[in-house]
């Protein structure tokens, strides 16, 4: 079981829920389990360009992206990265 934390605009799209406890082997599994999966993954199933995912504080893109394993992980945190100032 891993806890997924989403930012406030995603929580607003999920009946106000900001935390989700999901069974997942990978980051991709965890994101697909969310009621806002379509907002963090694009129509081809890739992580949206301005969405970052941190697994216990480490950027998932540096460790396999959606394939990043979650064995032993406690928290998956989704962060909206805005380009520019």
């Amino acid at each position, binding site marked *: 079981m891993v806890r997924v934390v989403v930012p406030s*605009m*995603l929580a*607003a799209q999920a009946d106000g829920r900001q935390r989700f406890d999901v069974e997942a082997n990978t980051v991709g599994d965890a994101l697909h389990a969310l009621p806002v999966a*379509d*907002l963090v993954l694009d*129509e081809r199933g890739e992580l*949206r360009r301005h*969405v970052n995912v941190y697994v216990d504080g480490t950027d998932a893109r540096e460790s396999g992206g959606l394939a990043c394993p979650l064995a032993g992980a406690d928290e998956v945190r989704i962060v909206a990265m*805005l380009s520019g100032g």
Partner: protein
Amino acid sequence: MAVLALVGTRKGLFLLTANDRRERWQVEGPLLDGWGVYHAVLDERDGTFYAAANHLVYGATVQRSTDGGKTWRRSQQIRLPEDSGLTVNATWQVQPGRPGEPGTMYLAGDPAFLSRSDDGGEAWEPNRGILEHPTRDRWPPSRGGLLLHSVQLDPSETERMYVAISGGGTFRTDDGGETWVPKNKDVEFDLVPDPYPEVGQCVHKLLLHPARPERLWQQNHCGVYRSDDRGDTWERLDGNGLPGPFGFTIMLDPGDPDVAVVIPEKAYEYHYTVNGLGVYRTQDGGETWDRMADGLPKQAWAAVVREASAFDSESLYFGTQSGSFFALTNGDRWVEGVRHLPPILSVEVTAWSG
């Protein structure tokens, strides 16, 4: 009758209400807080609100509310077929179907797609005739993208509808969307060597007159045009007293097919209004245009985008990129009903009993 305006902005949807004098407006919002609402509409068939809501991070969505905007449901993810090689960039317009087809909705977006829902906006199916149009490789993207808009249903002929594409031009179907015929004869496209191509024209907004559906009006990148034969031929009208050919939006009078109102902008490299906030009206089918100045600022460098105007049988309405909402009141006087909204992207109005 009181009026409700759905005002889509860069940062959410606002509901504006006024009594029949339209002078004092109440503001509720933002709904869909933080979303860029490119268009929002109330479906008169069942009272559902629909919004084309986009976000830089979270992508393109359609959202709907059956409780007056208190709670919203997202449609299934908007997709284009994998074999098209295209993916959705934005949703631009969401349009209810005909009175006799409850649950049918149309969705227009970028890159130049038209989708249809038959379940009240939960699932959407892209129109293949548009996606695979034989002229598609001659549709040049505009600065805002390659976007389809101006879904217009002919009330007199259930199989006929129109869409417009910037850039691509006007297209008409007479068989319910199976095939689409370019309708751009005599419409100039002065950015290319052949200024009268079959397709490629940059239509900014297309409107069908509801009482005379064979009559179409368009504000084009290159002029204002009227067609009296369902788009088969077009007459250019901006040489007749308008300060310039360029603008985005257009408004009509449901009771008088000879009336049209445009808001010209200095040419496209500049993209702001001329003569202050200059709004121009024709009452003779485009032969002459007069400025409607009463109540509008004489010093202004505003911009009014494609969907940011509306009309009903009583009045006209528009919103600016500087967050001001204007309504026309008795005696042809404009009132700035609300100011300091986020940049306004869309306006739709409906009679309201609240």
